[in-house]
């Protein structure tokens, strides 16, 4: 039973982190980034290459992937999104969709479509806490989730860049009048999304396996988290992700593992039909 809760929290953390990435790019640059999963996958592959093909340790590889994440985030935003930022939401989402296709194709082309084994992050496989055996990977996910959420929260609340992002999310034109540099703010959002993607990608790959298509369903759950947060509230997204993870575990535990993946999708439909503003309307910490 504890295992189920742990698994739920672990995967929920991943959904929360990815969901935050989606939220940041959506609110700051108006792009619903359908390619967030692919971004994650790409960075996981980069990490893999550094660790295995280039033979560096997993630690260096992870740091390397973070650096690449920054570069990729900057490039994606400045080269592709920024020039077309005036297009409407739907057109931007269309670009994100095609980006999804392009990145997957490129990953499959360069690395091949097979699945691979990703090196473990640390040498510990299982941890024993209070007599129960827990999968170590899940602990890392929960820890990463906590750290990520705190970092993002602190960043948004207490740094001037974070404040600038929140203002830009509310009202880009007003933000410009106030002297906010949209390019900087947008870059920050995409870099953050890439970094979050890198962390989740590496964690997921090390738990399961590495494949160009591994993020397929996971990113949909990030969408669920996003929707639960009303597409506005970071707090809502985080809670949404964790809740989803726990719910999935609950369903797997009580009903059948087969229905696990459908839970998130069902939640999306229900929330959007009955509470499109999310379950946490009023908790909009985006308000500057």
């Amino acid at each position, binding site marked *: 039973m504890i295992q189920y809760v742990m698994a739920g929290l672990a995967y929920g953390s991943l959904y929360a982190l990815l969901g935050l990435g989606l939220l940041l790019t959506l609110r700051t640059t108006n792009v619903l980034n359908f390619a967030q999963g692919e971004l994650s996958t790409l960075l996981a592959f980069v990490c893999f290459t550094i660790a295995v093909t280039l033979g560096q340790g997993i630690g260096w590889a992870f740091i390397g992937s973070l650096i690449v994440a920054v570069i990729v985030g900057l490039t994606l935003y400045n080269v592709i999104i920024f020039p*077309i930022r005036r297009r409407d939401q739907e057109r931007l989402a*269309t*670009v994100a969709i*095609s980006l999804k296709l*392009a990145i997957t194709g*490129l990953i499959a*082309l360069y690395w091949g479509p097979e699945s691979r084994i990703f090196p473990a992050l640390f040498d510990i496989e299982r941890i024993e806490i209070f007599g129960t055996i827990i999968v170590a990977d899940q602990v890392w996910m929960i820890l990463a989730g906590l750290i990520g959420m705190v970092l993002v929260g602190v960043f948004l609340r207490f740094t001037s860049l974070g404040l600038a992002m929140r203002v830009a999310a509310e009202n880009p034109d007003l933000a410009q009048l106030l002297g906010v540099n949209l390019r900087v703010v947008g870059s920050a959002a995409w870099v953050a999304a890439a970094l979050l993607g890198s962390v989740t990608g590496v964690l997921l790959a090390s738990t399961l396996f590495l494949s160009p298509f591994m993020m397929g369903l996971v990113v949909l759950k990030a969408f669920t988290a996003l929707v639960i947060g009303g*597409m506005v509230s970071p707090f809502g997204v985080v809670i949404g992700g964790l809740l989803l993870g726990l719910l999935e575990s609950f369903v797997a535990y009580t009903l059948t593992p087969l229905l696990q993946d459908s839970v998130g999708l069902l939640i*999306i439909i229900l929330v959007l039909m009955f509470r499109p503003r999310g379950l946490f309307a009023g908790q909009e910490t985006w308000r500057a």
Partner: protein
Amino acid sequence: MRSLLSRAKIPLLTILAMAVAILAASETNSYYLYVINLCMINAIAAVGLVILTGVAGQISLATAALLAIGSYSTAILMVHLGLGFLPAAVLGAFATTAIGTILAGPALRLTGLHVAIVTLAFGIIVVQLIGKGGTFTGGMSGMTLPPVTILGWALDSEWRRFIVILIPFALVTAGSIRFLRLKPGRALRALRERELAARTLGVNASAYKILAFAYASFLGGVSGALYASLKGYISVDDFTLWNSIYFFVMIALGGMTSIVGGIAGAFVVTAAPEFLRGFQEASQAVFGVLLFLIVVFFPGGIVTPFAGLSRLLSTRKKRAAAPGANENPPGSPSR
């Protein structure tokens, strides 16, 4: 009909030329004919998506699910109830219309991105449910259809299937072009561009959104039924999110609002992977990157330049022939 043909001349000729060339090749190899059949089937669904997403502005990532419902309804009716293909297909199309129109409900109250996400979730859940249907739907192993005959005529050759697919394809294309050119198309475009004014002109926004969903769902169902008859065997792997994305890309290639563009896009997206088979891994990447470049740099699509040219040619002729009877001068959104 005459003015319709003159307007869509060049893009239609392009498709026709491609098709004829391939048909000639298919004398020796019915595989190419199969590809054309597949292109037409996808084109039917793409036309529906042009109207729903391109013109009515409702982003739908559920297209593959619509095909799934159409295919599986047809298959289930044939396998479990012993119905013939024609009645099964018609019922299947209506079943798809009914289920697909349910999506209009949330769409009436939600913004564009929300609609995209709802259709995304719906699309996947429907297929997941089908996959868990046990013996009823064949579960994850799929369903095989009994041999398809229409009014006693067995569809046992690719040419026969070609004719059976060509008829709905032609009807759907012609009918949809009219649909967009006349009252409903104008109403949908007015709602998209000037919703408030459109409503004061009597356009019932809710009714038209529902109509758009119903139309696209119906075409998805028809497409699905024909797909089942073409392949003879269907499984949930044929109807994934990626498939929905490919439909989306088909209409994006054609400029989103153009029927003919969407059809051309369907032909390109369907046929290209078949012809790039030799370069399997490279093809997906090249394909993806190319599509991405087109969507970013040519948001008007690559086929609409053709459509614009053909319109230019035909209106010059029309002005010479009948002064004053000018219904769609250059600059109007294409059908």
